[in-house]
């Protein structure tokens, strides 16, 4: 049990997928302008990453490995993710319209979110078993959502500030992300 909790804490705080592993930066800067979109995107990412992590793990160990097709991993994974996103979108539209309206526009964007593919690949590279894959995928996505929401909170504040013209928008966003990342460095050493 302890190792799962350690994995959870490590993936959310210590090795935060956005701020320490640099994955998923495009949506991080793209959709963090307001709190609502950040929460929506965060939820969509948690949902898809967890599912994708588990499914790609099954694909790797029950489909690719037995047939010696390991070199097709990248293609197989991206197809699984693209199909999954499409499927989740259709399923939500039919059965949970409320959630679909909330996540709607963020779902298609997730296919090219490198955090999803990144987590799937890390699961395989680290040789996690099924339970660890589940925990790690979920925790990484929660870490992503946490960083995104925190960052959106900060960005909403400085939308009102006077900023030197050349630094408006993305440059200041990146520097802020750097400071946020620095504060997350404070968690280093908490868990190995």
């Amino acid at each position, binding site marked *: 049990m302890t190792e799962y909790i350690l994995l959870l804490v490590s993936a959310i705080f210590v090795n935060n997928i956005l701020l320490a592993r640099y994955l998923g930066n495009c949506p991080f*800067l793209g959709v963090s302008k307001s709190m609502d979109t950040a929460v929506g995107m965060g939820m969509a990412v948690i949902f898809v990453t967890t599912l994708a992590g588990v499914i790609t793990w099954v694909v790797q160990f029950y489909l690719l490995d037995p047939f010696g097709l390991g070199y097709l991993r990248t293609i197989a994974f991206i197809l699984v993710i693209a199909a999954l996103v499409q499927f989740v979108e259709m399923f939500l539209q039919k059965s949970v319209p409320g959630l679909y309206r909330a996540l709607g526009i963020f779902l298609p964007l997730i296919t090219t979110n490198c955090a999803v593919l990144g987590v799937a690949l890390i699961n395989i*590279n680290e040789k996690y078993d099924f339970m660890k894959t589940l925990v790690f995928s979920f925790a990484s996505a929660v870490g992503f959502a946490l960083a995104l929401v925190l960052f959106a909170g900060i960005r909403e504040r400085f939308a009102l500030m006077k900023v030197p013209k050349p630094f408006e928008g993305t440059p200041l966003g990146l520097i802020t992300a750097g400071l946020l990342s620095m504060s997350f460095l404070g968690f280093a050493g908490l868990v190995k």
Partner: protein
Amino acid sequence: MSLATEFTKGLWKEIPPFRLVLGLCPTLAVTTAAKNGIGMGLATTFVLVCSNILVSLLRKFIPSKVRIASYIVIIASFVVIVELAMQAYFYSLYQILGIFIPLIVVNCIVLGRAEAFASKNSVVYSVADGLGMGLGFTASLTVLGSIRELLGAGNLFGAHVLWSSFEPFTFMVKAPGAFVCLGFLLGFMNIIGTKK
């Protein structure tokens, strides 16, 4: 529209990842040293040029409804080629770049150029566009890598260049340094850009 302008727009006017804020993940992650920046940049350039050629050749045959999925399959195929080639010939670089090689698949620059340019233009122009964008990306990564390597370790391309009592600025090679450094570079590029 001339070939030269299609090629050079990627080198300054629309240079990724500065002008087009796409493909940030590899930009931030692998630029701890100048050499890694070049390796990552060239790998991306290869994928970009090849996928632009194929997308442009097939642009009349791919139905528009499944175009994005088709582009992703095309890009993923070239990424696998790069991955296997690097594993065979540049193993140490392959280990440093790690999962960021397979992640070229989801680099928005590659998909973005396929969708925005190659799917609408002839093969020759698409090659010029891919090559320009790719080399612009490589140059950006190399510059960022050099700055971080110089300040973070006092080295340049692995050779020690600063004075011997130089205290390395470890912050630069860690995650926050990447964000801050890229932010400042972007800001300075905007200053130069608006002066004209």
